[in-house]
C-alpha cells in the first residue's frame, strides 16, 4: 500500500517537473489529462479519504497547471468562432 502510494506520488512529481518544461498548449493538455487520470487513480486508491499530504500535493500540481496555462500564449479562439 505504502509502495503503491509512493509510485503514484512519484508520477505526480513527474508531472510537476514536466509542467515546468511545458511550452505549448498541446503539451499542457496532455499533462492536464495525465493529471486528471492520476487524480482519479489516487482517489480510487484512497477510497477512505485522501491523506493530507497527498491532497496538498494534488492541489499544488493543479495550481501549477493553472498557473502554467495562464502563462502560455492566450488560446486562439478563431476556430471557435467559425
Amino acid at each position: 500500500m505504502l509502495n503503491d502510494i509512493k509510485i503514484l506520488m512519484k508520477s505526480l512529481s513527474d508531472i510537476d517537473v514536466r509542467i515546468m518544461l511545458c511550452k505549448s498548449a498541446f503539451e499542457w493538455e496532455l499533462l492536464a489529462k495525465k493529471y486528471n487520470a492520476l487524480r482519479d487513480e489516487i482517489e480510487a486508491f484512497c477510497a477512505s479519504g485522501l491523506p493530507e499530504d497527498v491532497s496538498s500535493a494534488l492541489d499544488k500540481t493543479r495550481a501549477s497547471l493553472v498557473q502554467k496555462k495562464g502563462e502560455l500564449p492566450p488560446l486562439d479562439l478563431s476556430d471557435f468562432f467559425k
Partner: protein
Amino acid sequence: MGLIKNIGNAVKNEVRDYLLKIVEAEKEAPKQPEENVQKNAETKVEKSVPKVEEAPIIKDEKVQPEPVEEVEEVREKPRKKEIYPIANDLEFIRFSYKKNQDGVMIPKDLAELIKMLPLEEYACFVKLYCFALEQRKNYGYWGGTLKRRIGLDQLTTAEFEELGNNLMAYGLLLLEKLTENQKTFVLYVPFDEDTMVKLSTAKQPAKQPEKPAPKKAEKPAPKAAKPKPEPEEEETQHAEDIPGKPVEGMENDEMYKSYKTFVSLEIDKAKMRVGRANFDKIYMEAVKYIDKKYGFKVLSDSDKFKEYLTNYYISAFDIPTFENWKKSKG
C-alpha cells in the same frame, strides 16, 4: 607594448594607493569610538551623581522606547471602532465610460465628500477612481488582483479588506459577495450622462443596525419616486454583470453566427486596445477564474474552456450579450 606596460604600471600604483588608504582608514576607525566613549563617560561622571555606571544608563535608554510604542498602538485602535457614513442613500450605478478620459477629473461634489475620509481610505478611493477611469467602468472584482493593480501591493489582504469595509461603511463603495472567496465592488461616482453609459443599479445592502437611522426612516418617498427596476429585472441585470457567466439560449441560427463574428471582432479590437501584455494578464485572470468557478475539468476540456473564455471576454471587454445585441439590431 610600451604604452600598455605604462598603463599597467599606472593601474597598479592606483590600486596600491587605494588599498593603503583603506588600510589606514580601518586602523583609524576603531580608535574614534573608543575615544568618544571615554569622553562621554568622563562628562557623565562629571555631571551626574557618582553612583551611576555606564551599564544602567544604557539599560534605561533601551527601556524608554517601549512605553512610546504602547502609546502608538493605543492611538491607532480607536480609529477602527465606529465609522459613520459621510453620505447616505447614494445611488450606486454600474456604468462604463463612453470613451477614454484624458485626465483624472474628480467632480466637485465627489471631491467634497472624499475629503472627509481618513488618509488611507482617501488614498484607496482615489486609486480606485483612477482605476475605474483606466478600465472605463466603476465596478469589478475585489481581491488580490485589484489590490495589485491599484498599487496597494504592500498591504496585506486583511488590511485591504478592512479598507474596503471602511469605505463601504463611509458609504462610498459597495462590496457584494458572489461566493465565499469572491467579491465585486461598485465605486460611487456621480453619474454623468454625457460621459457615461448606465449599465445597472447596484443593490444597497441592508443597513447596519449600529448606525443611527432616524433620518433614513423619514425618507422613503424620494426613493420610491426614482424609477426603480423590479427585483427580478434587477437580478437579471446583476447576473449579466458577472464575468464569465455562461451565455444561455444561443440558438444555432444565422443571427447567432453573425453574433459570433461580431464577438470575434470585438475581442480582436479589445486585444489591440489593451495591448499584448495586458491581454495576457486578462487571459491569466480568465484561466484562474474559470478554474475556480467551474473546476479543473472545464479548464482541461478544450471546447468548454473556449466557451467559458469567450464569455469571460464578453464580460471583461463589455461586449454586448447575445440578447442585448439582438435587441440593438432590432
